[in-house]
């Protein structure tokens, strides 16, 4: 293990301090100067992160004949990209055209602004609209990513415009991309190498300080702060550095400063390495942070499971679409089960807070008819693994979750009345025949799952322009030699990201960063 220098100690305390000092002018006095260090290795381009954005950037830079190093903190390459679902919004893609669906820039931007609560940087959305199809065609034809030959719908989009990878995992993109990168003699992927800081020459980024043989330790409260392992290396980046380090969903301290109600028992579906360290390092050299408090949560995930788990699709499509959500303390409903993600998360948090340890999780229930209307796998996987429970009577269900029986039975019978009347006078859930096909909660067996919001995506990050250059908050101009793409950037998704939009963002701005650096 390497001894910590005074600079390192200073930096560690500064990490916290700089986060609190958001928006204040940083003098750059503390950054590493190129004349103070001896570079161990030299490349044209250094890319931080090996997910969608970093890999796409690498391929474009390699195409231009540049020498590229990809730096990955984790032992596993691809970050969240290899555990995502692999659906990508691509306006005007071939499948969309074949199905006769007409797309337009106005429609695309209007969709994004709606969930993004008008906070989106429209100039960047416009770039995604213009170039997503080019990225998709490149992935399909040149990289050899295999797609399901159809266009699919995704949450928040008013028309079908997403494509789906055959293996139903983002690894369907990353594996062929990395194969291509690794086959190129000008490229190297350095795993278990932790990026720490930028090396500056005046106001220009000319390299990085990193640690090789680094092993991420998920048992630490903050790996960024506490893990001092690895061997320090300085790497020169002649053309510059592309930051594609992802979001900070797994950074418990940092995210809770942005959004104080994200208490410590709130989990994330992200990989444990999704911390704020790289974002903070960019802010140290003047990058302008945007929208850091806008963190997207998934209201359907299960507190008894890690990550996304096996019951989330059931809770979303069976019990919330065709059943109801109960506060186990009162036996009563507490929200419109069909409201948007943000509204539902806020309502669930309020219910959870009634528990001594923030753990009064809502119980989501539906009957056999609701299950039958959906893909059987939505329910069977959870029932097999125990995240969804099955009961012959509502009384048994109430008992199992400690719900007061009488109020609960009244809630269900009231709800069934609302379905019959096609109107929910309490919370305004759409219950028309066209919405729920007359399905109430009456046909045994009954199914139940717990739910809690888990962190899904960080809309906020550092500001970039249409060329993927990082904008300085000190000069309001691009920082020379520093580019960024993907979840580490902010502004594109505004205050709420639509489904499948992160992939479009990563692929398009990764491509642009690789073209421009």
């Amino acid at each position, binding site marked *: 293990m390497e001894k910590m220098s005074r600079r390192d100690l200073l930096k560690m305390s500064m990490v916290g301090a700089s986060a609190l000092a958001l928006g204040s002018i940083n003098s750059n006095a503390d950054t590493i100067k190129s004349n103070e260090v001896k570079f161990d290795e030299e490349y044209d381009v250094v890319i931080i992160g090996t997910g969608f954005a970093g890999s796409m950037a690498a391929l474009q830079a390699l195409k231009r004949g540049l020498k590229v190093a990809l730096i990955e903190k984790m*032992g*596993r390459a*691809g970050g969240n990209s*290899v555990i995502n679902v692999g659906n990508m919004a691509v306006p005007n893609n071939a499948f969309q055209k074949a199905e006769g669906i007409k797309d337009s820039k106005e429609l695309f931007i209007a969709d994004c602004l709606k969930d993004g609560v008008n906070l989106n940087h429209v100039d960047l959305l416009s770039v995604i609209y213009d170039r997503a199809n080019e990225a998709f065609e490149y992935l399909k034809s040149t990289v050899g990513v295999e797609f399901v030959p159809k266009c699919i719908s995704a949450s928040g989009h008013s028309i079908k415009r997403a494509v789906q990878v055959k293996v139903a*995992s983002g690894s369907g993109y990353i594996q062929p991309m990395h194969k291509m990168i690794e086959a190129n003699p000008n490229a190297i992927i350095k795993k278990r190498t932790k990026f720490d800081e930028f090396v500056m020459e005046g106001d220009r980024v000319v390299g990085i300080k990193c640690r090789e043989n680094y092993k991420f330790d998920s048992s630490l409260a903050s790996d960024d702060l506490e893990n001092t392992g690895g061997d320090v290396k300085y790497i020169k980046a002649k053309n510059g550095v592309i930051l594609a380090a992802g979001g900070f969903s797994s950074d418990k301290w940092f995210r809770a400063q942005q959004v104080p109600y994200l208490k410590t028992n709130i989990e994330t579906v992200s*990989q444990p390495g999704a911390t704020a360290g790289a974002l903070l390092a960019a802010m140290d050299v003047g990058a302008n942070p945007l929208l850091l408090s806008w963190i997207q949560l998934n209201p359907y995930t299960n507190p008894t499971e890690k990550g996304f788990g*096996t019951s989330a699709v059931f809770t979303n499509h069976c019990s919330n679409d065709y059943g109801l959500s109960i506060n186990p303390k009162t036996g009563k409903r507490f929200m419109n089960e069909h409201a948007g993600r943000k509204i539902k998360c806020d309502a669930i948090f309020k219910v959870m807070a009634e528990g001594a340890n923030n753990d009064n999780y809502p119980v989501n229930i539906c009957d056999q008819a609701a299950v039958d209307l959906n893909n059987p796998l939505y329910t069977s996987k959870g029932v097999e693994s*125990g995240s969804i429970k099955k009961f012959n009577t509502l009384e048994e269900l109430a008992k199992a979750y400690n719900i007061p029986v009488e109020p609960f039975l009244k809630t269900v019978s009231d709800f069934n009345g609302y379905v019959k009347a096609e109107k929910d006078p309490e919370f305004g859930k759409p219950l028309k025949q066209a919405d729920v096909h007359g399905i109430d909660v009456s046909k045994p067996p009954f199914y139940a799952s717990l739910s809690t919001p888990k962190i899904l995506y960080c809309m906020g990050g550092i500001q970039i322009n249409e060329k993927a250059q990082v904008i300085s908050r000190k000069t309001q101009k691009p920082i020379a030699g520093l580019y960024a793409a993907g979840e580490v950037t902010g502004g594109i998704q505004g205050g709420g990201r639509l489904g499948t939009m992160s992939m479009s963002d990563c692929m398009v701005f990764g491509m642009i960063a690789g073209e421009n650096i």
Partner: protein
Amino acid sequence: MKRLALLLLSLVTCFSFVFGDTKSAETNSTKIVMSDELKAKYKLKPHHEHLAFDCIDCHANQGDDPSKFKNIKDEGCLSCHGTKKLLAQRLKFMDTLKANPHNSVHDGPTLYCDECHFEHKPSINMCSECHEHEVPQWMGVTP
């Protein structure tokens, strides 16, 4: 089919004949006496214990102070265990659910051995980070 057979053949040949490619001859200056204290501190896995391994069988050329031994990394493990592809082939039946830990849908045969397997402390299962409830249905305890 023929190509598959050839591939298998070459894999097996590599494993049986080459049995690793470390060129390091053993140069530890003194023998390490395996005291009970050392054995308790650096427990071996049952299957390695059964093979009666000494410290230096894995930690060759790392001196004679166990407290200073380094991680032997993938190369160390694979000097006996062949290749990651071979290890994936041995659990090929798990490919039916894309849950072969050595060739998963997410990572293929690219993970470091010590993402999951540890010699001197209990191993973990990285799949459990997300598939906690499914893992016991897919596979046994990580050796």
